[in-house]
């Protein structure tokens, strides 16, 4: 196999796998797993709603991720596949939210007088993640600058600024998407459909906040990695910067796999 062919296969294998997984039919077991995870009662009314939601979101997310991965191969040098893949996945996840998952009920219209806020569903990690990521990048950059050979620093400030801009953009996307999902119309429905609606919102918030935070971590890691490669610092600078970069990598993995949202909004007692 020639190097060119190997590169092409490497470029295509991941998106093809992602598309195969994303476009596979939604099985009853998958719907049941979703219902268990988000505390939704499976009924004749909720089963098709959840099935349609899972099919739509999986396809959009997989499509976005695959396009992002391919774009990285076509437009940039190697090393940005993960970054653009996650960015594409996030764009796909947001696009999937545009279609209203549940129709408005007919006849009399009923609504709750409880105030909805994005913060009532997001967990601590999802809310404070962007601040922690920027703080870690700030400490890392500061250590890189204060070390005695800073005058010979080769990492351009434009790269750090670009990564920082990416983090700010991902934060804005996260905030706007969360607001959009939480503020979507929520008329009072039958109890089972209300549970399904809550579960769908929680799942969407979880995916979008996880992908956004992972993207922020990858952007911060890009700058951190460039600084580490250029590093010839004495201890403890070296140790601290390595720990920060490793923590950022673990945070990216945690954001992708571990971030959770509440299936129900946090209980509020009127003031």
């Amino acid at each position, binding site marked *: 196999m020639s190097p060119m062919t190997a590169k092409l296969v490497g470029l295509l294998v991941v998106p093809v796998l992602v598309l195969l997984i994303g476009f596979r039919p939604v099985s009853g077991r998958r719907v049941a797993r979703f219902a268990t995870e988000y505390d939704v009662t499976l009924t004749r009314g909720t089963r098709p709603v959840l099935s349609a939601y899972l099919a739509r979101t999986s396809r959009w997310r997989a499509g976005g991720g695959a396009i992002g991965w391919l774009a990285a191969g076509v437009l940039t040098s190697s090393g940005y596949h993960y970054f653009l893949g996650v960015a594409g996945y996030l764009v796909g996840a947001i696009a999937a939210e545009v279609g209203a998952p549940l129709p408005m009920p007919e006849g009399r*219209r009923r609504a*709750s007088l409880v105030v909805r806020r994005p913060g009532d569903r997001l967990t601590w990690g999802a809310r404070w993640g962007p601040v922690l990521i920027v703080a870690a990048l700030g400490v890392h950059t500061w250590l890189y600058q204060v070390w005695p050979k800073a005058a010979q620093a080769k990492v351009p400030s434009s790269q750090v600024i670009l990564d920082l801009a990416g983090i700010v953009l991902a934060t804005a996307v996260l905030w706007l998407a969360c607001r959009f999902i939480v*503020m979507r119309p929520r008329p009072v429905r039958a109890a089972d459909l209300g549970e399904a609606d809550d579960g769908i919102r929680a799942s969407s918030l979880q995916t979008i906040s996880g992908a956004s935070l992972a993207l922020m971590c990858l952007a911060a890691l890009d700058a951190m990695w460039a600084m580490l490669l250029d590093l010839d610092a004495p201890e403890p600078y070296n140790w601290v910067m390595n720990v920060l970069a490793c923590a950022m990598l673990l945070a990216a993995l945690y954001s992708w796999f571990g971030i959770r949202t509440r299936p129900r909004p946090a209980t509020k007692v009127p003031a």
Partner: protein
Amino acid sequence: MIVEIDPDAATPPYEQLRTQIAALIRTGKLAVGARLPSIRQLARDLGLAAGTVARAYRELEAAGYLRGRAGQGTVVRDIPAVLETERTARLTDAARAYAATVRELGIDIDVALTTARYHLTDPAG
């Protein structure tokens, strides 16, 4: 706490909303200081125009039930005192409107009274 709008009712939606929120405040189900949802949230949930909900909130503010502050949202202010004469006049108006509907529909008086009593004593309002 749930509010309900009947799009087919003769009473306009803003008035339905106004009377229900006022009743929730008067009965103590909405306590003083409780925050109400934003105009946009409630309008979307009820499938109404934002102006309709805004009008209901505005009239409740004018009547002393609510207080709207920038950045703090709309909160329950107080249970305003209603003069005896005003209370009697409004009760009479409401009774007349109900009586007119009962006559228009040709409903027996006993049935109308039973229906009214049911709704007056129904815990769900």
